[in-house]
């Protein structure tokens, strides 16, 4: 296993574990407001300090990890669920179908992701699950693009031709013959999408369109801390650093997977 993959798994694993155990390990209630403990700097009681309502930043950080992870993973699952079939069909059927699907994808990709997310959220009252769907939707064309290019490479390989020579249905060829071979690059792409989804979800929360107060999404925490950044920088710093750490961890996993799954690395030994 490449070293990057190990490091990435360790970081992300720790964050996931801490977030899951948050209700039990959080040192303070995450939503209890107290005037007396406002703007406490980091201390032995409040490791990461307290915010403007006197809430413990560490506890909120742990609880918020759940929302951010749910956002990242949920949005990625949605984008893979819709993007992969679109890409497979475009790549395998080709011709006009491919043209139409990919031009739609181009249009969606030309609009800035945050605008697209805003558009989806602007028409309905904000809720976290809607943000996840919106972010997932934004990444459908990207996943579809990757799935299409992998499919193009596989569509004329001889084992697919053998399936056609057995009069297999298109569904069988796409999902049983091509898809199992397309997973490695798709997994790598999806792992990188998780990162972007968390960032975009946080950005939408920051703009007030994602998680709503008093919940403690990381993006929302940064947004709320903005006003006090000169007086109490720790309130913004903690979720900011946590997000950096998670992004780095997931990127390490993505790079590690790429290295592990890349067939070119195996073929170097074929010359022997």
């Amino acid at each position, binding site marked *: 296993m490449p070293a990057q993959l190990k490091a990435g798994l360790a970081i992300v694993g720790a964050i996931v574990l801490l977030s899951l155990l948050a209700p039990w390990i959080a040192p303070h209630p995450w939503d209890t407001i107290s005037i007396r403990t406002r703007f406490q700097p980091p201390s032995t009681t409040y490791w990461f300090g307290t915010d403007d309502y006197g809430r413990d930043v560490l506890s909120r950080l742990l609880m918020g990890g759940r929302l951010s992870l749910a956002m990242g993973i949920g949005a990625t699952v949605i984008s893979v669920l819709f993007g992969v079939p679109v890409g497979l069909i475009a790549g395998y059927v080709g011709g006009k179908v491919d043209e139409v699907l990919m031009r739609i994808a181009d249009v969606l990709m030309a609009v800035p992701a945050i605008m697209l997310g805003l558009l989806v959220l602007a028409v309905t009252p904000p809720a976290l699950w809607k943000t996840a769907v919106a972010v997932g939707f934004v990444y459908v064309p990207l996943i579809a693009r990757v799935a299409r290019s992998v499919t193009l490479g596989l569509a004329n*390989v*001889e*084992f697919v*031709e*053998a399936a*056609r*020579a*057995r*009069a*297999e249905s298109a569904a069988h060829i796409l999902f049983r*013959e091509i898809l*199992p*071979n397309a997973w490695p690059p798709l997994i790598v792409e999806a792992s990188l999408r998780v990162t972007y989804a968390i960032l975009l979800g946080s950005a939408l929360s920051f703009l007030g369109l994602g998680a709503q107060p008093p919940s403690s999404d990381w993006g929302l925490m940064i947004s709320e801390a903005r006003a006090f950044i000169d007086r109490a920088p720790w309130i913004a710093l903690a979720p900011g650093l946590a997000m950096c750490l998670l992004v780095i961890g997931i990127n390490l996993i993505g790079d590690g997977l790429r290295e592990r799954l890349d067939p070119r690395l195996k073929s*170097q*030994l074929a*010359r*022997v």
Partner: protein
Amino acid sequence: MPLSIEGLTICYRVPGGTITALSEVSLSVPNGRTLAVVGESGSGKSTVALAVMGLLASEAQIPAGRIFYEGANLLALSPEARRRLRGARIAMVFQDPFSVLNPSLRIAEQVGEGLVYHKGFSKQAALARATQLLHEVGIAEAAAVGNAYPHELSGGMRQRALIAGALAAEPEFLILDEPTTALDVTIEAQILDLLEELKRRRGLSMLFISHNLGVVRRIADEVAVLYAGEVVESGPTVEVFERPLHPYTKGLLAAIPRLAARQARLAAIPGRLLDLRQLPAGCRFEPRCPFAQSPCDEPQTLGGLSGTRAVRCVRAGELMSARWPALGAPPPLAPRRASVDTPPVVATEEVSKTFTLSRGLAALTFEGWRPAIRPLRVRAIDGVTLTIASGEVLGLVGESGSGKTTLGRAILRLVDPDGGSIHIAGKDVTRTPQAALAPMRRIAQIVFQNPDSSLNPRKTVGEIIARPLQRFAIVPAGEVANRVHALLDRVRLPAHYADRYPHQMSGGEKQRVGIARAIATDPQFIVCDEPVSALDVSVQAAIVNLLADLRDRLHVAYLLISHDISVVAYLADRIAVMYRGRIVENGASEAVLAPPHHPYTEVLLSAVPTITRADHDRIRLPLEARRSSKATGCVFAGRCPRRIGPICDTVEPPVRQAGPDHSMACHLPLAPTTQ
């Protein structure tokens, strides 16, 4: 002695251990001579070339050995000193001319590159010299070719350009790693001629790496046979080929199909290459050797025998005159039925297919000032009429680009033809929609060329073979596993292979799985598209034998597509010769292989390098087709060595009967030529 290798051992670190690619290999190339290193894939022959060049991968380690070039040990030189030697004094020509050239640089730039670097030429002078070099390697329009990009040239031209590039810095030593493997036989013959001429003219010494014994026989003065990283036999080429001493060499030579003597079954070498991670102490060939006895367990030494020859086999002396055991003909089966009583399995009439290479804006050209859309079209098949009788093997030969693969695909409707008609088992399937083709697909199957890409790498062998059984509900669900085992047995693979994944098998075993998948539906007809050309010689013979057995046992008809006329000649009842989308000659195998020939067939036959004759009269094709100005004449007219005159360019040759079951399309008189 410009190059000598002494006791060279090379290991590669791989997941799960260390592969010993070469074990104490000693070779030497005398001045002005050519040494061929022969071996199958995995024998370590490319590692020899890379070690001499100093281009080994980073996983390689050299625990022992020395490589002397002109008295200096290359392995002791600094990387900088080796870099100066590389290209300037020792040059290398790689296998695949299609991927070695940089697609975005002009040919002359790539040929002259070494001059700028090693000899300090100015760019201008290097380009001028490159043109001379291109001329030297037999390219007539050297200036134009030098100005072209690689994709504009044919494979043969690219290989010439690569050789020119290797010669640029005036090296004394040339390493050629399978230089003709990717080329057609007619082009291969030209490249070999060129190498011989260059060797004579420049006094080059050459290290020639190849798996093709016919090519080696033609080009090499001496030969070293490599097996599992060890030299098992070496000596002068003619002697080694005429009196092979090591059992492996005997086996390799026996496994080659010969045009002259068509046997019932080819001799094959059983088994597979041993695991190079765990080498036995004794003879490495022992598990596959029919002559193995008790002393073979002990370490074998490369012993000198009669002066110039050496062999690594204790029993070589007593086996001196022993021959590789020939496989007897299989028990006679009921004679195959004549084609009259049943309708043909396949009948095509005037089938054509044109591919459009550029369409839309890419096809925009200007005629004077007027824009016009002129799509670039290629006629892959052009009016092909064929019939294949039940249980008959029709061999289809031709060079790459002749349309043979497209024809095979078109018959199975994997490619939709533009015109003509296709009947399979009496039913017209020319325009049947794909969704309604299932009955045809059950009786007509395909075996592919490349065993690596024809099996889905994510499925087990059992799943791969079971799928057609389930798809066509050939056996009840409970019986599938049994039938899979029966099919594995039929292609001579053990039943436990059902749990393996393709990457856990050798090339020959994968090809057997591909064949098992094709025969799973009990087809009447199989398109075999170059079924053995990606395989090693020893494995190739076993697959050809298997195809012959299946034909006899299952009474299945084949369309056997191959560029190698000797494989086709061995298996086929009838042979069709294809050139640029047209069948130029068609008839019973005996009739096609014997005169009178179509001029193109004659060229193909004479270009096949054989292991029995060192040299013989060959007919050479002109390198580039002189493009016939009108599209009306004979397709072969531009390259034909027997062109009669303007009639060939203007009038399409009539298809004439040269015998009872033998037709050809040519203007030449049909009287048997005295040749």
